[in-house]
Every structure is written in C-alpha cells, then in structure tokens.
C-alpha cells in the first residue's frame, strides 16, 4: 500500500534483501542445530542416558537411578521409543554415530551377538566377572551375554514365560492350578464350556507368534528345543510336529483367542473374565497391577505343565541386557552405572517396580506370584531355556515368526509351516556360520 509506484519499486530490493538475509539466518540456525549433538543424548552432569523400548519402565529406571546415584553419583535418564521395530533401527544406526546414549537396553543371545559382531560395544567382561565373584549374577547367564569369549551385556532383568490366570474365575468354576497336562486340558474344557476363551494367543506385532511355539516344543521335549535353536535338530522332527499338532488342535477347538487379539489387552481380558489364561513373560505382572489386579488375590501364574509326566521340567527364560556403546556421551558414568546395576539395593527397587524376578539371584521378587514361580523353578530344578527370540540368529527367528503368524491365521498347515521354517533354518544357519568364519 504505498502511495506511488516509485516508493513501491524502491522498497522492493530492500524487502528482498531483508527476506534473503532472514532466509540465510534461518538456514544458518537450522544447520547449526542440525550439526549440534541432540539435547537428549548429550552428556548431562550427574546422569546417564538409557535407550529403552518400553516407556512404561521409565519410572522404574528413575527409581533405580536414584539408588544408583547413592553408589555411583549418576542417575538414570530414560529415553524411550516404544515401537520395538523402530527402536532396533534407531539403536543400530546411532551406535555408529557420536550420538548414541550411554546405556542401551537390548535383547540377549543372538540379538546381542549380532550387535557385538557389528562392533561399537564396550567389553564388559571384567564387570560381569566381578558380579559373578559376588554371586550377584547366574553363571549360566554368560552364554546369553557373551560373544567370542567376551561379555558385552550385563543382565537387566530375568523373566519367565508363564500362564497368568484369573483367580476369581478359576474359583468360580471350581478349577485349580493344573499340575499335569490332563489337568490343563480339563481347565480349558471347563473354561470353554462357560463361554471363556481358555488361552490368549496373538501374532500382533510379529514376535508374540513365537510364544506358544516355544512353550509347546519345550514342554514336549526340552532337550529337543535346545538342539533345535542351536541348529542341531530339524523343525520337521517328531517333537516339533507333535507340538504344532497340539497347537493346531487347540485352535480348532476354539481354545485360543483370534490371532489379531492385541496382547496389550490381555490383563483387561483376564480381569473381565473373557480370557482364562494369558501366556506371557513375568514382566507382565506390572501390567496386571496397572489393570487393578492384586497378585495372589486377583491373579496367579503357573508354568505350563509338560505334555508327558516323564518329560524333564523346564522354563523359558528371557533376559534383557544393558550394553554400553563405545562412543557413549558419558562413557565413564555409564561404566560406573553398569558396575553397580546388580547391587542388591538397586535391584530391590528395580525388582519391586517391575514386579518381576531380578537378574541378581540373591534378590527375591517382591511380587508374591513371581516369588512363588522363582521357588518353583528352584525346587523343581527346572532347566532354564533361552527364549526363542534370542536363541537363534535374528534373521532366522524373524522369518520363522512370520511363518508362525501365518500358521496362526490359518494360512498354512502345521506340516507346511514347519517345512518352511526348516528351509529357512538351513539357509540362515549356513549364512550365520559363513559370517562367523
């Protein structure tokens, strides 16, 4: 709105210069911001950042961090990415940069071996051996945290795969905790007759498809399960076929939820009494509490009975680990915190938060249901078997999980599913061994 054309034309170059200057300044600020280390992963005095794929654990890390600070002077600062898929990508990519967090939560077993193989992790052998000398870590954990005779992870927690059940529902229907396979089948029949889906089974999110597979195979023949995940047995062998037939039979009888049932709804379904038993890790205990269920009163848990009475007793164990990136922003602080993580005072707080068993065998779980399971594992000398997700090379497990998901959706028969899994196992084990060589 200049009064004359002259004024207007004179104003244009000035406005353009200002505009260009503004754009240049903006670009400079953006560039500077882009080059700077992200505020979230930068070193912050008195803290160590931790990458985490479960945002509901953030408060637990903070509580444990306060205990850690009393020992090391450093708290924990959780940075969560709740999508497991994107979490894995982000961690693997940031490990190659100078922007990685100080501590990273990761899976143990082959997942850790693959990460360690790519380089960029700190050797934690001395820390692990220090814990072992104090009896603060199970010696059997070594295989799950090591690669080529060096430890790269410190156990973060230890969970068992169990069947949670609703105590009020079982009481109402006159059911008791099944101590044999026949008793389990009886429970399922009664629940089904009363309009309750006996078992929760899901493939939402991909990995849950392994849960029933690992349970049924290990409870059919734990030795076979171990050989299978080690690549020494075939997926088409009799024990695997038997396990898949049982699973197929359960599905045909309508004993399992639809495969698109989201496990996040498991505690709610148990509370409502629409689902009878929920197969999951004991870390789900905190989810039960979040749904307003009291351990021992509203819910209990038991380990799936073996298919035959004579079969050796076992339990599927899942152990997450902490790893320390070699290029962590506060490497010294991170090493101090992994060095004190399994201290009983820290683990007391952490285990109480998770309501799960600690990786330190000297710390008893505060949750009475989990403490009961710990006693069961010790009393029956159950063989702890590594969860399927961590027990074989990641590409093999990922592909086989997809196949099991397809089986759950009725796309393939048990035999066809196992055949595909075996074909993949041959290829992926050959690839893993070739890479190792």
């Amino acid at each position: 709105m200049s009064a004359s054309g002259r004024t207007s034309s004179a104003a244009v170059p000035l406005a353009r210069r200002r505009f260009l200057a503004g754009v240049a300044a903006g670009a400079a600020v953006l560039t500077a911001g882009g080059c700077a280390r992200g505020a979230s992963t930068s070193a912050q005095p008195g803290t160590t950042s931790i990458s985490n794929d479960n945002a509901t654990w953030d408060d637990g890390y903070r509580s444990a961090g306060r205990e850690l600070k009393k020992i090391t002077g450093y708290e924990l600062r959780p940075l969560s990415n709740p999508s497991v898929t994107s979490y894995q990508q982000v961690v693997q990519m940031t490990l190659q940069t100078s922007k990685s967090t100080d501590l990273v939560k990761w899976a143990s077993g082959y997942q850790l071996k693959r990460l360690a193989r790519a380089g960029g992790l700190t050797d934690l052998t001395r820390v692990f051996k220090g814990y072992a000398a104090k009896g603060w870590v199970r010696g059997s954990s070594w295989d799950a945290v090591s690669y080529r005779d060096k430890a790269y992870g410190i156990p973060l927690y230890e969970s068992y795969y169990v069947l949670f059940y609703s105590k009020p529902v079982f009481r109402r229907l006159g059911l008791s905790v099944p101590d044999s396979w026949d008793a389990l089948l009886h429970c399922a029949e009664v629940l089904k007759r009363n309009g309750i889906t006996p078992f929760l089974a899901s493939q939402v999110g991909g990995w849950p498809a392994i849960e029933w597979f690992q349970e049924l195979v290990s409870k059919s023949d734990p030795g076979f399960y171990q050989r299978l995940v080690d690549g020494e047995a075939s997926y088409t062998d009799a024990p695997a076929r038997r396990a898949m037939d049982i699973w197929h039979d359960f599905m045909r009888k309508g004993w399992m939820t639809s495969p698109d049932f989201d496990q996040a709804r498991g505690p709610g379904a148990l509370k409502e009494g629409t689902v009878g038993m929920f197969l999951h890790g004991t870390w789900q205990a905190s989810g039960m509490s979040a749904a307003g269920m009291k351990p021992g009163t509203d819910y209990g848990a038991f380990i799936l009975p073996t298919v035959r009475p004579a079969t050796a007793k076992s339990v599927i164990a899942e152990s997450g680990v902490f790893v320390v990136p070699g290029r962590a922003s506060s490497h010294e602080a991170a090493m101090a915190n992994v060095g004190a993580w399994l201290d009983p005072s820290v683990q007391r707080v952490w285990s109480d938060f998770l309501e799960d068993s600690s990786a330190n065998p000297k710390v008893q779980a505060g949750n009475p249901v989990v403490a009961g399971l710990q006693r069961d594992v010790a009393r029956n000398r159950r063989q702890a078997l590594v969860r399927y997700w961590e027990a074989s090379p990641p590409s093999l497990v990922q592909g086989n999980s997809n196949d099991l998901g397809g089986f759950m959706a009725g796309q393939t028969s048990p035999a066809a599913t196992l055949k595909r899994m075996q074909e993949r196992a041959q290829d992926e084990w050959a690839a893993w061994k070739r890479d190792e060589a």
Partner: protein
Amino acid sequence: MSTSTTDRRPPTAAGGPAGPRRPAPRLPLGHAWQTTRERLAAGGFMAPAVLLVTLFLLAPFVWTVYRSFFSDTRTAPFSWFDNYALFASDPALARSIQNTLMWVVGTVALPFVLGLAIAVMTNAGRLSRLARLCVVLPYALSGSAVAVVWNFMLTTDGAVNQVLTTVGLDSVAQGWLLTWPGNTVVMILANAWQATGVAVILFLVGLQSIPPETLEAGSLDGANGWQQFRHIVLPQLRPVSIIVIGMSLVNGLKSFDLIWVLTQGGPGRATETLAVSMYNETFLELRPGAGAAIAVVLTVIVLAASWVYLRRQLDVKGG
C-alpha cells in the same frame, strides 16, 4: 544446465508456425560479461535446490542401486542379480507383487469412480456442502490415524463384527485382517474411504469450470441427463481425470502407512506390498541388499507407470 534450458525452443514452436524471430544482436564485451553474470547468478540461485536434490534424492538412489548388487552376508560380496532373483524364488515377494497390483487397481478405480459420482451428485443442491464435507474430511486425517480407526473396526472382536453379531449376521462376521485376499481388499476399501476426498475436490473444480452453455446447448438438442454427462461433462473432465488417475496410480504403488499400522504386512507376510516388503527385508529381516533390490524395482515400476500413463494422456490431449 541453465544453458540447455534457455537454448531449448518453446513447445509452441513445434506445433504451430513460429513467430518472426529476431536475429541475436552481437553483444559488446560489457554485455557479454553481464550475460555471464546473469547466468552465474541464476546458477547460484539454482544451486541450493540442485544440491539438495542431488544429496537427498539422487545420491541415495544411486547408492541403493549399487547396494542391490551386493549380498547380505557379513562381508557383502558382489552378487550380480542374486537379490533380484528373489522375486522369482521367494513366495512372500511374489505375493507382495500380487498385492501391489491389487492396490494399484483398487486405488485407481475406487477413488476415481466414487470421487466422480460424489462430485457430480453434490455439485448442486443445498445439502451438497455438508455431504461434500463428510467425504472430504477423511482426506485431512493422517494415514496412521485412519489406520488406527480402521483397526478398531476390523479386528475379530472389533466394531464391524460386533455390529454384524448384534443384527444376527454372525455367519458374516470374520477375521477381516487375517485371511488373504480379504485382508488386502478391506485395506484397499479403507484407503478408498480416505483417498476419495481429494478426487471429489478435483472433480468439483473440473465440474465448476465446465461452461454452462455447453450443457444448455445439449439440453436444447434433446440430450437427456445421462447423454449430457457421457458426451458433454465427461470429455471436459479429461484433464482432471488425468490428474486423479495419475495421483492414485502413484499412491497405490507406494501404499505403506495404512498396511503397516493395520497388519505390519502380516499375518505371515500375506498383506505386504512392495513398499512394505522393502521395509521388512531391510529393517526386520536385516537384508539391506534384498531391500535395495525391491526399492529399485519399485522405483522403476512407479517411474515407468507414471511415464507411460502421463505420456500417453498428455500426447492425446496435445494431439
């Protein structure tokens, strides 16, 4: 680059008689310097855009093509076309191609037909604005949000099955996202629900630019409603139709977000499209070479389909 652009003859010169062209005057030295300066300035202004496109589009693409020729083992040796051979040997990728074709057909046909029908029906009338708003609104939602809503509806114990059970149609209730090809079909329908909005907007713009005289003339000549639509309206909507179909074609080929949130390509990789397979192979199966090969094939298909379609349509229009 700037030289070739400025030297190129304008398109009108090829089709019609060229106007009188003034011979280029011989420029004195000062003018030559000024021309060079102008070219340099133009280059300077173009440089950031060229640099960004090169850095973020062309360079990654070249690297992706390069990576696709290497195997996915740890040492990643050169493996010629092994990654491309997966299309013949991996049943999941064969299914992925099938699904991609279904998506292309679905995302082209449904938004086109529905968009045109809704635009024609709501072009006039008092309640048309409200109806139009209802159709266009989903387009404003993000793909992921739409997928979350549809997930709530399509799971086995979701809203759709609950409604069916309530009205006594238990036999129709099923796991909509579990069995192929039904799961792909319902996702295409969910996508159409969202994508139709933009087609409606474009067709409405097209309809409003049709001169009313042409319809009046048709009416005076005794053409009925259908004849007017078929022979007067539809031919004049051709430019808009080209855009709608072109956009839908590309959207169909690169469909990802809805599938990822609803099924993650499962169960058993049954609902993957090429875009989802590319992601799955690269980041979940940890085979970047195979993922790169899928990315290259997908890019070639998108470019070829767009080029063939647009070239044909624009040629026809031009002719």
